[in-house]
């Protein structure tokens, strides 16, 4: 339990700092790298929560595919990589900061009110629940329709992205 807490707090601090880095960095490539830290931290938290399969999907799809897409996006649109922050932000930074603080404050207060002191029960059932077998059988028993429709959605997204990005 003690070890878990240490790991959680290390990860949480890294994720929080990196998340701020994503939205405050003056260099788009740095932002992408900060995003990798947040995504990897989230994957580690999933392992901490015994969701092993989702953690690896997170690593493969998010860090492996989505981040690469972002890097291509940065490269192809020649987004500024210098240190000129005015080019990346608009002029509503202060308002945005107030809104974000407000959201965080309200959500935290309500979360404490609703779930304060409740513990997650780590037992053998929890570990079994995160296995690919358990997920696979539930996915194909209960969520077969959304699963099949997602495949059509990915096909359409592929076709759409090709049409949009193609030079003609």
């Amino acid at each position, binding site marked *: 339990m003690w070890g878990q807490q240490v790991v959680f707090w290390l990860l949480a601090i890294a994720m929080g700092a990196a998340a701020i880095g994503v939205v405050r960095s003056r260099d788009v490539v740095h932002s992408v790298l900060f995003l990798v830290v947040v995504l990897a931290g989230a994957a580690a938290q999933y392992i901490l929560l015994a969701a092993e399969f989702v953690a690896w999907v997170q690593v493969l799809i998010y860090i492996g595919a989505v981040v690469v897409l972002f890097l291509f996006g940065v490269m192809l649109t020649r987004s500024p990589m210098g240190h000129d922050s005015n080019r990346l932000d608009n002029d509503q930074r202060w308002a945005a900061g107030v809104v974000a603080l407000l959201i965080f404050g309200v959500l935290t207060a309500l979360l404490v009110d*609703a779930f304060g002191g409740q513990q997650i029960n780590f037992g053998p059932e929890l570990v079994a629940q995160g296995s690919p077998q358990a997920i696979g059988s539930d996915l194909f028993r209960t969520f077969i329709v*959304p699963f099949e429709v997602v495949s059509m959605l990915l096909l*359409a*997204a592929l076709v*759409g992205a090709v049409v949009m990005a193609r030079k003609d």
Partner: protein
Amino acid sequence: MNPVIDYHALAPEIVLSVTIILCLLVDLFIPDRPRLVPQLASLGVLAAIIPVLTLAVSGTDVSMFGGAFVVDNYALAFDGLFLVVAYITLLVSFDEIADGDYYGGEYYVLLLTSVLGMVMMASSRDLVSIFIALETISIPTFVLAGWRKHDTKSNEAAIKYFLIGVLSSAVMLYGMSLIFGFANGTKLSVISEYSAGSPPALFAVAIFLTIVGFAFKVSAVPFHFWAPDTYEGAPLPVTAFLSVASKAAGFVALLTIIRFGFFNSSDSWQPLIWVLAAASMTFGNLAALRQTNIVRMLAYSSIAQGGFILVPLAVAGDVSGPSAWEAVLVYLMIYAAMNLGAFAVVMAVSRRTHSTEISSFAGLGRVDSVNAVMLSLFMFSLAGIPPLAGWFAKFVIFRAVFDAGTTAAVVLGVIAALNAVVAFFYYSNVVRRMWFDEAPEVVSSPRPASVALTLAIGITVVVVVVVGVYPEVFARLGQLAFASG
């Protein structure tokens, strides 16, 4: 332990999926016959209506996957609506897509994928299915909004719609994740049970975030700002699709999640929907008054019409019978017919004038009296003048308000009535200019409206007139859809 799959109940989805894949393959292997893909697409949509009809005739409700996917009259009524709307959208698309410098085959693939999401939405009864259906509806339309690739207005339409779409999904999902945590399940029936207890304040916030996500999708004020720009920038058939089909799908999602999930905590959602309804009607109408472009005017008018559709939802918690739910369905069906019809006429006219400014419609009565009569009919129907279908749509809404009978409901009813009067001004302004103003110099090279476009106008005008005179047709449909609920 294998799940029971009823292929008859899934037939509309399967037919659409097969059609999508066939369209892709035909477009790839038979590129020299560009008419083939649109024909195949409309055939597929018509074929998907057949199982909807046979399921409706068989009359048994099918519930699969532990109640996550349900095919009942409610789902079938909306399936039918979506498929008919899809067919008319295809009819109005043929000329525009064939004449412009567009990708042809891909257009139909994306449009049908969006329709697949809508058909799935009507049957979805859990958060995961609703989310996937919503994304399947939205993601293809982000691309379709930017289909005029070399026009920066169309680019803007796509990027605005895309960013608002993903942002609203993220907000909605945050709400859904909290709801999952509270209710310990994603099925709406489980959430409904949970909300019957006394949930903490955070649950109300979760409902709020979820509904805000949907409010973006149906462009309810104050989450509407993307709609006019997107509608103006997108190709006209896509605008017609967005303002009717996507919007209807958003309302179906809202209706489903409120009716089957949140209904018991009406304190959380009723005030929110009330504000959205009042703001959408008032702001949409006032902004529509100022517009000089008919597409922008129709965009604001569709925001206002969306406000009217929210009215019965805002009072649904205080209505004992199903009249509020029926009102949403009936209004959506009538709204679909009249708005699609209006867009079809605008398309037919703009093929001649190459303009969508309201000034270019001046004197249309003398130049092209058939289209002028049609557009007048649709405008008066949108304004709610009897004996056109629009009046019945307004009637079912006020009936729901009276059934509720609370102070909040009556105030909302008064706001709706005032807005109906305001709306009359800008709709009738178009009609006045068509019949009483001088025609401007006609631009050369008119392109005649095709059979398909004429057919689309024909179908919608028949619905608008027949339902206006015999409203029992749609009223009966509404009763059947909510008979068991």
